[in-house]
């Protein structure tokens, strides 16, 4: 057997012939749709795939995409970004976070601007580097501003575990890990977005299992297909959704069977449960306060919790978005980026007013990069 190569993981899933063939099958079967499909792809990774590969151009008009709240940078309210800035400004402190978070504007500045002003703020490629940085700087306080959905949570839990096991005393955690199901339920309960099918976030399900979406078909009678992130995956997922609707079914199905099971990664789930617990509420940008929609450090590990230890300096007043920014409306699935007055003019990836333009997983960013003003 030849060695597995990295390209084997994506080559076939971008095959032009397969993409054409799937697009044709969808077009054929969509003729039998009883009503137009409004599919929410919850995850920003899917939004990115859809726009990058121009999938709407290959699909009939009866199928449209509603972009969901599944970009961890986009849903972060300004007051949490202000937390990160306040932590970074503490004396003798290094603030660590992941990529795009650096550029998101808070109420006054962004971490990138603060870094330029001289504060020690570093983006990480992997959360595990937090351990290394803490060890290399024993005389400094190191705060990891952790973000992400279920996908990235186990990594944070693993870093917490290692911090305890290796007796590292200068590393603290500001937890912003959020959960997909409560946010999607909030959007469905609101009902305005008129979504009648879902492409389920799949890397979330690698960890949490596909089972977390079962309430959607049960409660709202909407098909859910957990799809991979390559264009062939997304099209296959759409074909499965079309078939469900034509056959008047509303089931939870997995397209991304090479990675996702119903149960998920139970070891990772246990790791998360050991160190983190649901927090009573978390304010999502645009959607507002959702109970049990995020995680926090368990009380027994409070000595690692930056929110508790440095609570005195953290501002907690909710801060609304720029009045021209409609990120919130977009995150609820009620508007497309092009409907925003400042899209591509006052708000661009270089000068973002809202978080959806900053993150590479944000809907506005994906529209700007791949579709310009023509989508």
């Amino acid at each position: 057997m030849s060695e597995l190569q990295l390209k084997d993981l994506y080559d076939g899933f971008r095959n032009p012939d397969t993409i054409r063939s799937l697009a044709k099958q969808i077009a054929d079967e969509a003729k039998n749709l009883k009503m137009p499909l409004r599919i929410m792809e919850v995850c920003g990774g899917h939004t990115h795939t859809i726009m990058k590969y121009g999938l709407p151009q290959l699909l009939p008009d009866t199928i449209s995409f509603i972009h969901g709240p599944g970009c961890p940078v986009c849903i972060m309210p300004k007051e949490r970004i202000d937390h990160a800035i306040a932590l970074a400004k503490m004396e003798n402190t290094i603030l660590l976070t992941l990529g795009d978070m650096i550029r998101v504007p808070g109420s006054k500045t962004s971490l990138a601007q603060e870094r330029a002003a001289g504060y020690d703020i570093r983006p990480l490629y992997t959360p595990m580097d937090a351990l290394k940085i803490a060890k290399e700087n024993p005389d400094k306080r190191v705060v990891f501003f952790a973000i992400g959905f279920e996908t990235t949570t186990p990594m944070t839990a693993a870093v917490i575990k290692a911090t305890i096991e290796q007796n590292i005393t200068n590393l603290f955690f500001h937890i912003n890990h959020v959960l997909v199901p409560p946010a999607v339920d909030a959007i469905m309960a609101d009902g305005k977005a008129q979504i009648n099918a879902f492409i389920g976030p799949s890397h979330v399900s690698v960890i949490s299992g596909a089972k977390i979406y079962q309430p959607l078909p049960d409660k709202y009678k909407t098909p859910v297909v957990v799809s991979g992130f390559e264009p062939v995956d997304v099209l296959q997922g759409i074909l499965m959704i079309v078939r469900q609707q034509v056959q008047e079914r509303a089931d939870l199905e997995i397209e991304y069977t090479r990675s996702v099971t119903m149960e998920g990664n139970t070891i990772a789930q246990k790791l998360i449960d050991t160190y983190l617990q649901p927090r009573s509420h978390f304010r999502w940008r645009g959607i507002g306060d959702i109970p049990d929609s995020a995680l926090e450090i368990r009380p027994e590990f409070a000595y690692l919790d930056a929110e508790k230890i440095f609570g005195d300096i953290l501002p907690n007043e909710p801060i609304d978005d720029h009045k021209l920014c409609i990120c919130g409306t977009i995150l609820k699935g009620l508007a497309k980026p092009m409907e925003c007055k400042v899209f591509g003019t006052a708000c661009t990836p270089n000068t973002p007013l809202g978080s959806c333009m900053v993150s590479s997983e944000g809907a506005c960013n994906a529209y700007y990069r791949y579709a310009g003003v023509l989508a």
Partner: protein
Amino acid sequence: MKVVQLSHGGGGEETNTLIHGLFYKHFSNEILIKAEDAAVLEVKNKIAFTTDSFTVSPIFFNGGDIGKLAVAGTVNDLAMMGAKPLYLSSAFMIEEGLAFSELTQIVESMAKELAKSGAKIVCGDTKVVPRGSVDKIFINTAGIGEIMKEGISVLNLHEGDLIIASRDVGRHGATVLMARENLDVTADLQSDCETLWPAVEALIDGKISISAMRDATRGGLSAVLNEWAQSSNVCLEVEEDAVQICDEVRGICEMFGFEPMDFANEGTFILAVAPEDAEAAVTILQQFDFCENASIIGRVTQKYPAKVILRSGYGSSRFLDLPKGELLPRIC
């Protein structure tokens, strides 16, 4: 271990030893060894003049080093204007403590690269600064070249011109990223760092009608194409499948979420040529081993002026935007 000390930049005896024992030895030519305050040059035709500073970290990477880059970078900027590279200046800013063996390796590498175009280093400067003032070594080179073909310009793209890439894209950026992050993903990946003048000279000798020519350095292919589209107010339509990207670069981009077309190159250039000359240009380029994969990747149209469109192999299209944000600092 012998290292560079502050005294080597002091202008006295140690400086002299460094200049004579190392720089004159490897860069030797009649103009340089005169050691005047300025080099006196004789150029008959119109000249091109350029400068660039090199700060790459790490200073040694797979496929090159900061010295090779400092020569190839400036020589290539001249070549891209249709100019035969003639004379270069070379200024070294060295952090005290740099191993002499490393400095020697860098200088040898520069000499080897100069030989590929025939350009000479005719003047220079050496400063040694205290630890922490620069990272190991920074090099500035400026260059003068004699224009062999006039009219090559970013303003000169015409509807109908075909776009050619001299090889696969993204190698230099991916190589430096791997070295910087200590990634042992693949041993086969090498920077494309290379002097391009021989290939350009062959195109000029072959009477290829070149409208525009640019090496795809920082910002990669995306930046070149967007700059052209905006400067000449034309639309560039590119076939995505025609742009070659090696498996290693693609793999690294998959892992880190980068776009191969945004990654820097240091020996890859893009040409816009008259349609009737495109096939001949590709044939000429393919004679050089650093251009053996040269191919036509797109054409100039008026569909969406000032925009670059990427066409997929399955019938969709999208804009190719300029890379934004912090891609990867200090790649050159």
